[in-house]
């Protein structure tokens, strides 16, 4: 369709051709500087593609430095785990230990939770039923014997967690105390009442 203009072939200026021009030196230098910076950046932040290193950590060494010190809160963490597990206490008493108004009494600040260990251990071991006063309020308890399926270690851990969390500052409960109370309670099937608990020696 289109007709080549005749002039181009007869023009005095030669047809332009692609030539070779060397890459400017500054560009080469810049590229090497960028490459160097990239290597340093990767070295400090890349974690060498380790699947264990997530931002904001930079390396497994740094991650190791940020591990919780061994022995740190281990007993409390074990108790927290039982407390918050699917079968645990948090279902009724909630993760914050405040319970539910009108249904489940609070553990935070509760005089029963921070009272004598021998009384507190009996509550999850056998359950609790009937009227009870917690933090000046009357409750009608209907707690099953959730602690009976736990081991002595687990029950001691979770009770210690309750006694030391949410502002509670009571003493630790050891597996030996739980074992002792378990022996005293024997095969008792029916839950305790508040009055019975008050009569248990401290």
């Amino acid at each position, binding site marked *: 369709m289109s007709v080549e203009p005749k002039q181009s072939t007869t023009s005095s200026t030669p047809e332009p051709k692609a030539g070779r021009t060397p890459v400017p030196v500054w560009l080469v230098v810049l590229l090497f500087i960028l490459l160097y910076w990239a290597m340093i950046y990767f070295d400090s932040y890349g974690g060498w593609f380790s699947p264990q290193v997530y931002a904001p950590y930079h390396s497994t*060494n*740094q991650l190791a430095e940020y591990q919780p010190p061994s022995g740190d809160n281990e007993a409390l963490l074990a108790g927290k785990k039982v407390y918050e597990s699917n079968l645990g206490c948090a279902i009724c008493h909630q993760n914050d230990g405040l319970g539910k108004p009108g249904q489940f009494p609070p553990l935070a600040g509760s005089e029963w939770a921070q009272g004598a260990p021998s009384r507190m251990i009996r509550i999850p071991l056998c359950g609790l039923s009937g009227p009870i006063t917690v933090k000046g309020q009357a409750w009608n308890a209907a707690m099953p014997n959730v602690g009976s399926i736990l081991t002595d270690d687990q029950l001691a851990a979770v009770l210690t967690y309750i006694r030391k969390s949410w502002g509670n500052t009571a003493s630790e409960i050891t597996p030996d105390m739980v074992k002792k109370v378990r022996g005293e309670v024997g095969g008792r099937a029916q839950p305790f009442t508040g009055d019975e608990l008050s009569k248990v020696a401290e």
Partner: protein
Amino acid sequence: MNYGPLIFLAAFFALATSWFGFVLKPQMQIGQLSQTVTVPGNDTYPLNRAGLAQQGAEVYRANGCASCHSQNVRQFGTICEVVLTATGTNQTALIAALREIKAGASDQEIASFLTGLPKQLVIGPSRAVADKAVDSIKSAGGKTVMHIKPAGPELARGWGERQSVAEDFLYDSPVMLGSQRVGPDLAAVGMRLSDVNWHLRHLYNPRLEVKGSVMPSYRFLFEKRKLAAGASPDALVLSAGAGVPADAQIVPKREAIALVAYLTSLRSQEPLFTAPYSTATPPASSGTNAPGTNAPVAGASPTTNSTTTPAPAK
């Protein structure tokens, strides 16, 4: 000139590099992922979901929950907290160390700080400052515990204790990370809201539990039955404002129960080596905490990234 082979090579190179970067390398990185253990605690993590919760994951998927809810909490930094647990015997040296740490504090403030330990000594984003405080207290004969908490706006909202890592999704197929946050993140919703009945009421009508919620009601997961047939033990306990007639009851279908089982199974909160955190000390009596075994004081200079020491992966 025939550029065909050159174009073919260039295209092949471009596709091959992206395949290496986006498919092969990630596969090598986390393709062999397996169960790990919690640190501290040494428990196996993660465990597979219970059967009902696995069915619930399908309900979650079918109803498109992932289009408004994510399951991925991110961490943007750390906060180091140093707690002074014991003063030791050299009171003068300790007070000198404290004066250095708490610059500008009067003698009276320092004296009152030393009563009623354990007390928070330093809190801040800088590991170097925390390490320095630990070192100076240690050389003065006192004892400290250091806690490290992940930080970031998402953690500050209470969406979890730590960031999400690949292990959290080990048994999920497909992984429902989500991409939009019309609603809150659900990575650890089972920890924050562990009440099954709350979830059921919230699914039936979100406005009953959360004022101004924009979540749609999932009423088709529930059945409206006449009370005449006898009250179901599963029926929701609803307040009078819920708009349910007095002669009717709302009973969750199996899908609703499964979905709630799935939601309460979302508990990616165990501390792992890849996402460390130590819980804040509850105000414990200092006897139980064995403060002697604490604090990564030995040679922990966080500014260096040297690769000389192998990671004591504990």
